[in-house]
């Protein structure tokens, strides 16, 4: 598993909360640091793709682990 600097558990949260919480968490990181997000909202897969595309942060990984969606985002 890839390294990360901070983890955000967005399990059980629905749109748009995973994105809003992630945005907050990323704000507290320094450039180059990585945030790991765990979510259960199936819509979050496309949403985090779109979020990264629009904010310029890098989506390092997007996958499933034990029935949950896991994302690694590197702050630009």
């Amino acid at each position, binding site marked *: 598993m890839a390294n990360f600097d901070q983890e955000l558990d967005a399990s059980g949260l629905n749109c748009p*909360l995973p994105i809003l919480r992630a945005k907050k968490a990323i704000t507290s990181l320094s450039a180059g640091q990585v945030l790991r997000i765990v979510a*259960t909202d199936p819509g979050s897969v496309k949403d985090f793709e779109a979020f990264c595309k629009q904010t310029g942060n890098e989506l390092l990984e997007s996958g499933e682990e034990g029935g949950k969606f896991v994302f690694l985002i590197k702050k630009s």
Partner: protein
Amino acid sequence: MADQKKLAIIATKGTLDWAYPPFILASTAAALGYDVEIFFTFYGLQCLRKKLKLQVTSLGNPGMPMPMPMPVLLQALPGMQAMMTTMMKAKMKSKGVASVEELRELCQEAEVRFIACQMTVDLFDFNPNDFIDGIEFGGAAMFFEFAGEADITLYI
């Protein structure tokens, strides 16, 4: 930022269900880096109350999913609206959907600008003290000052 995108929203509805789209879109756009302004007019002003009294009704709304089929006249009985509101809130909570209050707070934290339509505040005799802090009051011209520069404008 000169290249910052802008989103302008007009929020006109004062029901629990219709309070969501303006706050969801505004908070998300703000998270994506947009500069966002919401202009609350007519019944949309209900969304700015400190103590929200938003309710939901199936009356005149055949698209609302009901736990059981119910004749329209029965839906109009006293107490039904309060019951539907309670059920809707419970359902939203169980599905991890944020409350309107929570989304509104997230918008304010993200510096989304809230503007209350002065004309409708006067028309409905709203007390400005009943509204949350940090809002501005203005008219149509003030809306266009922002919307004229906006990349997206939504009427909800």
